[in-house]
């Protein structure tokens, strides 16, 4: 390998380590979130360097969009109530800091012993781990096996073949995990369904123009990636995440398209992916094949159908993550405002 490439890889790895360190040690939660978002972007570059385009696509879609949005939205909640919690701001903000965001590392003093112990054991683990990684033998790998059966799988891209044909169980249960996580969020919130956004400030003309132009483009890009998954890097997850991000963008700009859908349609959208997997698996069992085994002649079409259903479901679920978390605190925020304003008038 050429030295210049080693330089690039070394630099990216150094940046990864620095960003992770800063994300864990930054004095304010907001800084942590920014470092973490930047870490996601650098990770996408690392996947490209490791020649893993499918993972790079997924990381780019989730890292730049969904994750940052969820973190920033949660910060709003932690920040709003920080006034009631004196401990949250025990660390002095740097001069000039707008003290909107709570300090994160409010570590109580007199805890040096556990700190030393944890640091020492993690350092020791690091040495052992690096040693073990360096001494791993070369060889093995499943590239050849995945390539060998490719023509029987119905698609031309090995990663899609692994995801939807060789290891269909994984993907099916993964859609199940998404569904479970959403139910968990519903339980943690204590109610079902998401309300419309209450706009704290209306989007400007420029923004709503952009979103009108961007949302169809995002849906187009999602369809493109879904189709591309058959023969090149791309596929259901990436396209589902982009669909979900399009929904989040629409919601943020005040277009209540999805929130106004009838609840039944939303539930159907959420269950579609899991259900289609189940139906196809059951049909395969009834016709005497193994669960989720596709007939070779029609595997391509069936996989595309399953992928489309999965993408729509993933999009809905990801939108629901954000919309639910985003709308839950809205009425409460209004109350808080009212309370604060009332409190101000008294003195």
């Amino acid at each position, binding site marked *: 390998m050429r030295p210049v490439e080693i330089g690039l890889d070394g630099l990216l790895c150094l*940046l990864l380590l620095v960003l992770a360190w800063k994300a864990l040690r930054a004095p304010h939660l907001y800084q942590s979130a920014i470092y973490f978002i930047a870490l996601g972007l650098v990770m996408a570059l690392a996947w490209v360097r490791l020649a893993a385009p499918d993972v790079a696509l997924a990381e780019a879609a989730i890292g730049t969009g969904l994750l940052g949005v969820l973190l920033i939205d949660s910060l709003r909640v932690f920040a709003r109530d920080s006034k009631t919690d004196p401990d949250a701001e025990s660390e002095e903000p740097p001069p000039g800091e707008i003290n909107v965001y709570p300090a994160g590392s409010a570590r109580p003093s007199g805890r040096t012993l556990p700190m030393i112990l944890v640091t020492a054991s993690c350092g020791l683990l690091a040495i052992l781990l690096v040693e073990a990684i360096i001494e791993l033998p070369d060889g093995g790998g499943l590239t050849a096996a995945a390539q060998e059966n490719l023509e029987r799988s119905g698609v031309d891209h090995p990663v899609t073949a692994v995801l939807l044909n060789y290891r269909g169980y994984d993907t099916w249960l993964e859609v199940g995990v998404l569904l479970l996580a959403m139910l968990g969020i519903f339980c943690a919130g204590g109610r079902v369904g998401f309300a419309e956004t209450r706009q704290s400030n209306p989007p400007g003309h420029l923004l709503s123009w952009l979103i009108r132009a961007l949302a169809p483009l995002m849906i187009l890009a999602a369809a493109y990636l879904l189709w591309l998954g058959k023969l090149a890097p791309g596929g259901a997850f990436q396209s589902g995440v982009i669909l979900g991000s399009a929904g989040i963008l629409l919601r943020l700009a005040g277009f209540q398209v999805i929130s106004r859908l009838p609840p039944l349609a939303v539930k159907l959208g959420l269950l579609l992916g899991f259900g289609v997997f189940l139906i196809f698996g059951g049909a395969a069992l009834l016709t005497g094949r193994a669960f989720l085994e596709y007939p070779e002649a029609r595997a391509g079409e069936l996989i595309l159908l399953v992928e489309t259903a999965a993408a729509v479901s993933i999009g809905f679920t990801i939108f629901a993550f954000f919309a639910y978390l985003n709308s839950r605190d809205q009425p409460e925020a209004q109350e808080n405002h009212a309370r604060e304003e009332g409190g101000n008038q008294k003195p």
Partner: protein
Amino acid sequence: MDTFYVALAIFLVLNVAASLIRVIRGPTAADRLMTAQLFGTTGVALLLLLAEASGQPAFRNVALIFALLAILIVICFVQTTGSAAGPGNREA
């Protein structure tokens, strides 16, 4: 030619690494957000360069996603920070 692309990529990575100083210094949340924005844009350029260097046009789709979704975080920040830093709280 490949060496040129990789060298340019190294330069751009150094560039964004330097811009992290702005996250440390702040002073406002918006300043820090700008660094994330610069990371996004430079990320697009880096991905295009690396796609060219490795001869894999597939990586261009990653840059496409970056460019499509780059706006989400900023819009989310601007639209949701209202209740925390809004005029109601500031006057309090």
